[in-house]
């Protein structure tokens, strides 16, 4: 398998029959004959001009392929992130509220178990059960390619294809949010304003949602950021299992083809989007918790 030279993909099947001179020419055309530091300088210059290079494998500009694939990854990870955050907050709040009871310990066990599952394996099991045996959901892809569906039916089809990958991603990323929310609830529930709220005679439900949950949400915002990276990382393998046409699967195919420009381009886009998301979250944090402004 690995490692390999991109030469084979540049020159195609004749790679074995090339003379040394022809081989040199192919390498020169791709700029692979220059010293590594020069190649790196050229690479940085290209990035500055938003020039991500040319995919050896697809014979198309890297940026063009990425733009085609990015929406699918954003859809998949976006839905999964919303789902796992919502579920993690809900169950974390309830578990923290019922601290030490059987339901709390049961939930704790389940979520720690979920954290130990290999995502790709969970995906395989879901495919075997729900797609192959029960035939409820499609086995692969993001949409039916030849159905010619339009409008609402098209989006229904997209949603059906999304169910299993999103479920997998939610299950493997949800525990971080759950554990943080639970721990945060435990510390908030010890605060005096909770005692005051109870003393005012508020219903338990109101104390829980109005006073406890809202204040316990803050640390979850931080975990959300770390989860962002985890979700994108998890999506790489899961897209591969489901043949989902996102950036993750693209990177995987690029690895198999030793398509280095594609790999670097994909990695750059993934990293950049996470850094940008982090920046936005940092900017949004003072809106969530005005106390951080004071500390400057």
């Amino acid at each position: 398998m690995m490692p390999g030279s991109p030469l084979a993909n540049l020159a195609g099947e004749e790679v074995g029959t090339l003379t040394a001179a022809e081989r040199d020419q192919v390498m020169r055309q791709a700029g692979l004959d220059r010293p590594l530091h020069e190649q790196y300088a050229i690479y940085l210059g290209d990035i500055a001009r938003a020039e991500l290079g040319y995919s050896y494998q697809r014979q198309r500009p890297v940026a063009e392929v990425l733009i085609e694939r990015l929406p699918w990854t954003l859809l998949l990870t976006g839905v999964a992130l919303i789902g796992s955050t919502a579920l993690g907050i809900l169950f974390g709040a309830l578990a923290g509220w019922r601290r030490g009871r059987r339901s709390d310990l049961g939930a704790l066990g389940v979520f720690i178990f979920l954290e130990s599952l290999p995502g790709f394996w969970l995906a395989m099991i879901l495919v075997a059960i729900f797609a192959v045996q029960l035939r409820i959901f499609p086995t692969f892809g993001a949409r039916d390619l030849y159905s010619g569906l339009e409008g609402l039916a098209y989006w229904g089809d997209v949603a059906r294809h999304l169910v299993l990958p999103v479920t997998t991603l939610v299950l493997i990323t949800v525990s971080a949010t759950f554990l943080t929310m639970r721990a945060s609830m435990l510390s908030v529930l010890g605060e005096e304003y909770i005692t005051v709220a109870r003393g005012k005679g508020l219903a338990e439900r109101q104390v829980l949602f109005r006073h406890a949950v809202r204040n316990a949400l803050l640390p979850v915002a931080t975990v959300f950021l770390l989860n962002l990276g985890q979700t994108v990382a998890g999506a790489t393998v899961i897209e591969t299992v489901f043949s989902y046409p996102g950036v993750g699967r693209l990177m995987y195919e690029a690895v198999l083809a030793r398509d280095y420009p594609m790999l670097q381009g994909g990695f750059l886009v993934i990293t950049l989007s996470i850094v940008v998301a982090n920046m936005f979250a940092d900017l949004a944090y003072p809106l969530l918790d005005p106390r951080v402004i004071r500390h400057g």
Partner: protein
Amino acid sequence: MAEAVAGRGRRPALGAVGWLGFAMLGTIVLASVFAPIVAPYDPTVTTGRPFESPSTTHLLGTNDIGQDILSELMWGGRVSLAIGALAAIVGTAIGTLVGVLAGYFSGWSDAVLMRLADVVLVVPFLPLMILLAAYVGPSIASLAIVIGFLVWARPARVVRSLVLSQRSRDFVVAARSLGAQHTRILRLCILPSVFSLSLAEFVQLASRAILLEAALAFLGLGDPVQKSWGSVLFYAQARGALLSPAWTWWVLPPGLLITGAVLGLALLGYELERILNPRLRLR
């Protein structure tokens, strides 16, 4: 005085959760370590018909070329666990070093090292690992190093905060005001507690590393010569096990073993951290 007694006193014992983790992990480790003796067949040799379902001769059936899956998994465990352990050693070593340097010599080295740790924490592991694994090539050592280099940030942060709190303890301040050198303070006052915490972090990292190795091997980026649990699943996926009844004995067991090892390590690490981290214990 009271605090000194509490600090010196007996450590809390491993709880039921810790023992459960220990038992899960122990079973899997023993079965893998003694694979040459206890595995029923040589996993590289065809010993049955292809896609044989589980029976008394092949407890977990056979794969597409008639190899015994149980034996394959026992041998595969050696690779998976070895990479997990090696990667965790690399990660813990880097993390401990960085944590001690950043925590003890605060200032610009702290700032630089911790920003570096932030970067490593935020960058999505798997795409980066795919990239690195593709460049360095697959072997147990290189995979372990790649994984180790990507997971050191968490232990670095935990160790740093421990060092920070130890450094301001009275006996360290006293030692310093008596003119003790950095090496002496580190050796006598800081490192002993750091090392026990590193052990807990090592166990946690091993659990992460096993998951990451499995994902890499599943993508076909593992060592092609030596099958791990992840690469068994790679072959199962590639040979269409999901489309046949074979998934129940070819796909389920390796995943359960990965989950078992990861969960065992996580539970054990969780308990060890509770016991060995003085910061958590004081609460």
